[in-house]
């Protein structure tokens, strides 16, 4: 895959927590020198957003049922810092696998 990985970040209202999570992921991607495109939205719109953004992975701060089509990660650690490093490792491992 040559294009940047698309990460879809979702929360209940697409106001606060997805914005926070998106900023943190963008910062980490810069640190790791990985090009990503981060899109935001509401979990209620997951199906439509997945189609329109062609996202490779999902990071959600609200409950989202696991999906067969793309990996889903719980983004709450990005808000508190607790478990954040592990989550970043999982996210960027998943992206690396997609890029292979």
């Amino acid at each position, binding site marked *: 895959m040559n294009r940047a990985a698309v990460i879809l970040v979702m929360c209940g209202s697409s106001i606060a*927590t997805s914005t926070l999570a998106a900023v943190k992921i963008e910062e980490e991607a810069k640190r790791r020198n990985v090009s990503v495109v981060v899109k935001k939205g509401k979990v209620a719109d997951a199906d439509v957003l997945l189609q329109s953004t062609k996202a490779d992975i999902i990071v959600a701060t609200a409950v989202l049922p696991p999906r067969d089509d793309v990996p889903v990660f719980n983004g709450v650690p990005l808000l508190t810092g607790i478990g954040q490093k592990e989550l970043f490792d999982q996210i960027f491992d998943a992206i690396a696998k997609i890029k292979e």
Partner: protein
Amino acid sequence: MLSVLNSLQITRFEQALDRRELLQKMAEIAFENGWVKEGFAQALLEREEKYPTGIHAPGSGIAIPHADAEWTVVPGMVVAVLGQPVAFEPMGGQGGEVQANLVFLLLISDPDDHVAFLSALADFISDAEKLQQLRQGDGLTLLLEHLKQAGA
């Protein structure tokens, strides 16, 4: 763009409250200040039931309730410091019930306008010591300083 810092209020609640009572009181503060539209309280309560906002933060239980952007008239924040913890369901379904000591009611109109504020808040809630200081009083100055330094 209006800074969230111009409309920031911190209130201490000593009495025992349940989640609905607390959110109702915080929504009233926001409404009386003219920061939200009529009907906000209901929208806030409904959203919290559907998408809970309790967070197990370092050393403290917190919650960051909010409603959709359309309800916000003036971007701001109402903070509740709780003498007796209030139970919130965990955000993202992780980690069991949160006994919240601090509740940050976020009033956001356009998230892209408030990225600095939101990131500063995330840093704040990741800091056990700052959360503890906010709980113990003189919190307003501390919180304001932190948010200002972060360019919120």
